[in-house]
């Protein structure tokens, strides 16, 4: 489950976990050290008190002054203010040489002359330690039965043992101090965590965010690039993540180019297929059509038809001629013998179209930058220009504007015909160059089809841009010779 969490959560989570583990470990180490110190401190303090007390107790013990002894063992209690008894012994008692209680700080529980082990069995071990004590030094011992700490110190005068001082420290004192320490350490850790966790979370998010963005952008890429998918990496670093972002951006660009190319290829494939089909049909129709027209012509010349037959034949002949015209239009013949294109050929086009422009009061802008002869078939080029210009003049309102520019750029003849007439809706742009396109209102709707076929055969390209202000057709025809055969093989056969 954790494996499927988003990096945006997982990374900060891991950093936070690391922070928590570090904080806990450091705190635990410190607390462990403090705990040892605390114990040492307690024992050290207790030893000091024991040393002072045993020395002070010598005189009262020698004089058998129980009250003085009682006052002395009570001083550590009285010297410590109430509530701050953290280092005060739980109980202090003085045992005589028979190990009976001489005095204790808690007389009601541990009265004089009593045997401590009889009151609390725990003292049996203490009593044993008292008996075993051979040195004059205080000795700390931990109770076997509880968490109490005992400090046993002999009271010795001139090498003679007068008695023994026993100080008992309740384990709860140690536990209390330890808990206090733990609480303080816990609070400090809490404060550190309160600072570090948000910082860790923030940095975790920062590390993960570019990857998350990248993954989100990648997720949108399906079999087709969605419209308007853009990826600009927000992360500017040049590390692996940054490189990944840049790579993805580049890949997206390539995908987009590829997609556009594919679309274009599909469109031109379709147009080529349509071209082959129409050419095939036209060819098949042309042969019997020629035969039929020949037969009618022969019959009219040599036969003597009656008026009804003559009228019928004439009707059939006109129909057949119309079919021939249509079929002829469909068959774009690129191998027409013609001379290279000159500036005059282009100017002739202007002259040819001018009457139509005048008929519509069109503002006709002409810009011809061609000077010498170009290695392009003049007839076909002129046909392209006439088709585009007539279409443009047809598209404009009365008094509209039509512009034609011919230039040479990068070994390419560029013919740009634009108008400010009704613009072509984008959904129709895809079918613009298909035969019998719905775009043309009159005419047979083959103008752009023929134009496209010719441009294809000349190895060039045609581009349409249309928006509400202007529609422009740009034809690019390469001047290099080697394009021609390729274009021709791919074009209309026969």
């Amino acid at each position, binding site marked *: 489950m954790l494996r499927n969490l988003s990096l945006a959560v997982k990374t900060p989570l891991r950093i936070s976990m690391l922070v928590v583990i570090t904080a806990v470990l450091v705190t635990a180490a410190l607390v462990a050290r403090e705990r040892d110190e605390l114990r040492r401190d307690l024992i050290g303090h207790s030893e000091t*008190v024991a040393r002072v007390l045993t020395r002070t107790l010598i005189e009262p013990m020698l004089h*058998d002054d*129980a*009250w003085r002894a009682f006052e002395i063992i009570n001083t550590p209690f009285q*010297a410590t203010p109430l509530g701050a008894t953290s280092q005060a012994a739980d109980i202090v008692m003085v045992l005589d040489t028979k190990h009976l209680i001489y005095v204790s700080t808690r*007389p*009601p529980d541990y009265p*004089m*002359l009593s045997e401590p082990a009889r009151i609390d069995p725990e003292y049996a071990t203490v009593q044993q330690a008292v008996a075993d004590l051979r040195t004059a030094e205080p000795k700390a011992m931990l109770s076997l039965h509880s968490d109490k700490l005992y400090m046993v110190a002999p009271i010795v005068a001139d090498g003679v043992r007068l008695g023994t001082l026993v100080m008992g420290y309740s384990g709860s004192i140690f536990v209390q101090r330890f808990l206090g320490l733990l609480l303080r350490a816990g609070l400090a850790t809490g404060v550190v965590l309160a600072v570090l966790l948000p910082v860790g979370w923030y940095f975790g998010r920062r590390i993960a965010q570019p990857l998350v963005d990248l993954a989100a952008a990648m997720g949108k890429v399906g079999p087709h690039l969605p419209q308007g998918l853009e990826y600009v990496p927000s992360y500017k670093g040049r590390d692996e993540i940054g490189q990944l972002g840049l790579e993805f951006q580049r890949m997206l660009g390539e995908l987009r180019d590829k997609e556009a190319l594919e679309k274009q290829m599909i469109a031109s494939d379709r147009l080529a297929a349509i071209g082959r089909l129409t050419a095939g049909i036209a060819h098949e129709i042309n042969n019997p059509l020629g035969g039929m027209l020949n037969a009618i012509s022969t019959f009219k010349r040599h036969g003597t038809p009656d008026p009804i037959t003559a009228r019928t034949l004439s009707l059939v002949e006109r129909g057949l001629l119309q079919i021939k015209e249509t079929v002829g239009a469909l068959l774009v013949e690129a191998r027409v013998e013609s001379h290279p294109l000159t500036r005059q050929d282009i100017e002739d086009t202007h002259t040819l179209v001018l009457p139509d422009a005048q008929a519509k009061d069109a503002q006709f802008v002409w810009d011809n930058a061609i000077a010498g002869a170009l290695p392009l078939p003049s007839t076909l080029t002129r046909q392209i220009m006439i088709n585009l210009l007539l279409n443009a003049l047809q598209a404009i309102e009365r008094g509209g504007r039509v512009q034609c520019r011919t230039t040479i750029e990068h070994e390419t003849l560029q013919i740009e015909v634009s108008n400010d007439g009704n613009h072509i809706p984008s959904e129709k742009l895809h079918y613009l160059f298909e035969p019998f396109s719905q775009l043309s209102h009159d005419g047979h709707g083959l103008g752009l089809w023929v134009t496209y076929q010719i441009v294809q055969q000349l190895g060039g390209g045609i581009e349409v841009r249309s928006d509400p202000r202007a529609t422009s057709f740009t034809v690019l025809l390469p001047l290099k010779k080697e394009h021609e055969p390729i274009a021709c093989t791919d074009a209309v056969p026969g």
Partner: protein
Amino acid sequence: METSSRRSLLAAALFASCLRQVHAEQPAAALRIGLTPVFLDDQVAFLNSWRSYLERRLRQPLVFVQRGSYREVVNLLNQGQLDCAWLCGYPYVRHRERMRLLAVPLYRGKPLYQSYLIVPATDTTTRSILDLRGKVFAYSDPDSNSGFLFTQHSLRRLNEMPAAFFGKSFFTWAHRKVVDAVAVGLANGGAIDGYVWDTLALSHPGLTGRTRIVERSPEFGFPPFVARGSLASTQFTAVQSALMQMRDDPEGAGLLQRLNLDGFAAGSPALFDGVAEMFRTSGAN
């Protein structure tokens, strides 16, 4: 570390007080009065007020001398290092021939007081001293009548050997500390000056409340002020009248009130015959 520094501080304070005493001896006329814990002698501020009051009345400097036990004060008085002392009746009857009775405090209108036998308040069964056999017992001072002699005497009259009767006995060297020892349960019983217990009951009811009075002794002469036998009679009379007139002026009366006393009377040595009798029969120590 702390303890040793405290000890050195104590030593320094002792040394300083010695110096002051040496210094005080230079003007010849300083009157030296010894005090014993027959009353609550640990009230330093009160003692300062009383001293300054008596100095003004006597028109001479006065020094209160306090010691850890009755015996030290008695010795100082016998050696002539003190002019007067507030002693217990017991040392007075023992050294009667070398001392003069100066004044006897009046407690509840009479120059008399009692000894109390007290036990911890938690002990509800003890009815007499006989119930304390084998127990731990706190005396105040071996030279105290109420805090030692009377108890010894009582035990002898009951045909008990005082030295063997208790499991353990000890001295606290002050009546007040007998109350402490019994209150905390260190001792199962204690002998105390009844006047001290009553006075403590007024100022520290919480402390005396933790003890219970089991027996009250017959009345004895109140611990008296005595003068060394060699004290000049003018001086003797001056101190005596200063003490006896305390009840007559407001400041003296106020001091008496803090002492929980009604005044001082000249007193007669016969007041202490009871104590002397006990001393004789018990053959003390």
